[in-house]
């Protein structure tokens, strides 16, 4: 019996010791790194609700944009020494998920807090909301279904939403509707697809340096033109103006993953 108590005493002391050392490591000099998402169409800055069809896709079809929103999640930063800073993800979506909404300028900048000091070489993130999050039940924060990016009938989030209009669209009101989502996969259901995309963008040697006094900002460009013309092909508004089911979005989801790149760093 006495031995047990001695063992407990030693374990307890060890825990106290470990906790102390952990605190010492994480409590000093951490900083902030910001990721700015700048939405553009080719060489033009993206503007919502333009009075005319202000933009053009790679096929020369004119269009305008009324809504553009997407989720960025599970952000990781790779340090020069090969270690990672992992932005914490909460089971209920309250942290680790960011809704970039073109209509809300404040949402364009993601602030990664408590980043250990150092020189960072690349950023990795997902565009969308992973299947594992859906098994956790009701979500909050940016994932609150009242925000309007939740599919009820086929439960899940729209990862990337673009709506607008094009004179060549054959849909009602010349509408353009692209709702990229879908994360379910099941044996025996070949058309159920996981359209979530994880991408890694390197800083090309222009490494942001994080410390307590510096909060560098990484300027990321999302080019909507590439969303319609990328590795999976060229999307025509005349023949493909509406996509809002997982299987129908496989190609635009691949294009979506290729629409992001790092433009420059503000140190």
């Amino acid at each position: 019996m006495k031995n047990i108590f001695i063992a407990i005493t030693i374990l307890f002391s060890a825990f106290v010791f470990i906790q102390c050392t952990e605190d010492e490591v994480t409590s000093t000099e951490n900083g902030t790194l910001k990721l700015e998402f700048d939405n553009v169409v080719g060489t033009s800055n993206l503007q919502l609700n333009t009075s005319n069809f202000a933009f053009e896709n790679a096929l020369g079809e004119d269009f305008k944009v009324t809504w553009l929103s997407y989720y960025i999640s599970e952000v990781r930063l790779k340090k020069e020494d090969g270690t990672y800073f992992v932005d914490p993800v909460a089971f209920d979506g309250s942290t680790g998920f960011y809704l970039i909404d073109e209509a809300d300028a404040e949402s364009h900048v993601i602030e990664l807090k408590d980043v250990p000091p150092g020189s960072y070489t690349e950023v990795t993130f997902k565009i969308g909301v992973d299947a594992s999050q859906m098994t956790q039940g009701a979500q909050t924060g940016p994932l609150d279904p009242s925000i309007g990016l939740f599919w009820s009938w086929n439960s899940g989030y729209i990862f990337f939403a673009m709506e607008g209009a094009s004179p060549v669209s054959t849909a009602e009101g010349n509408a353009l509707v692209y709702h990229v989502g879908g994360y379910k996969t099941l044996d025996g259901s070949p058309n159920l697809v996981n359209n979530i995309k994880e991408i890694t963008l390197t800083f090309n040697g222009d490494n942001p340096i994080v410390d307590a006094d510096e909060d560098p900002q990484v300027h990321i460009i999302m080019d909507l033109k590439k969303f319609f013309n990328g590795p999976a092909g060229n999307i025509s508004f005349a023949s493909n103006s509406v996509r809002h089911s997982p299987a129908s979005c496989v190609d635009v989801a691949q294009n979506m993953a290729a629409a992001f790149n790092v433009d420059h760093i503000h140190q």
Partner: protein
Amino acid sequence: MTCLLASHLTFYLTMRVILVVWLALLILSCKEQEVSNPYQFVIPDNFPESKYSFQNNPITKDGFELGRMLFYDPILSRDETVSCSSCHQQHVAFADPLHVLSIGVDERVGTRNALPIQNMAFQQFFFWDGGVNHLDFVPINAITNPVEFDESVGDIVDKLNASSFYKNQFNKAFGEKEVTSQKVLHALSQFMVLMISANSRYDKYIRNEGELLSTQEQRGLLLFKQNCANCHSTDLFTNGDFLNNGLDTDENLDEGRARITEFNEDKGKFKVPSLRNVALTDPYMHDGRFNTLKEVLQHYSNGIKTSSTVDNRLFTNNSPGLSLTEDEQNDIIAFLQTLTDESFIKDKRFSAPLMPKQ
């Protein structure tokens, strides 16, 4: 050294006290479990594991009671005329006794017969097409469907936040007055996960609790095992699969599960429903086309229509139908009636709550 010894001795004594208190607490909590807590989730002995994420939404009495109020309150619908309980009524195991197809706001007619709400914690997929894969998300379907509540989740949150009564209830349940969609959905889930039906005559028979089945019911059970239990398996009476049970030919197959899987081979397939309380939940099938169990048994016996996706277990010697005699059909129906759970449909925990005037 003496100082170190003394501190170890103090520590030793402290640990002893902590251990004693801890053991006492353990014993107390065991005793509490023996006195059954009506708000505790307990898996019946003959049931499989639950699928619900309790770690993110632990049940409390106040959370359950809030879910119960919301379930019965038409505030969840656009014009506050329809509640969950409109189409899910306790006396018929929370199915819809009145309508073949459910009716929403403005008397709009839905496309499906309302499924009963029971044993929700044990299901992986919800609704006839299985489009929803977590219980928390189930109410969003009814809320936002134009032929059901035709309401937005955000509007519901606003309406509840404008009610001092509800703000107090949310505070009691979740420790915060502010209503969020997450709390609304969690409360509804807390109510629904406790809606367990596992106390029918069949359950008491299978668990050796002193219940006996009549000779006819036992014959029915045997026939059921031979003819039906391939799909209506386990004591949930479903294998959780999506199958075409031969209701229509290819020309008029409903989209069914294919709406979710976007796969033509899933056309005409629907969730295999549980048969618990099946004698109460008429009409039957996704579109409520059969009014009686007799019609259902006749369908399986000699009414199966062939199509490209019909389940091949519904054929006998390459001919459609299970070819059951009338006596066999009656025996199976007699057995199915033993799945009626009187205590579930009379359980006061699930009945309409008394709401104060607001």
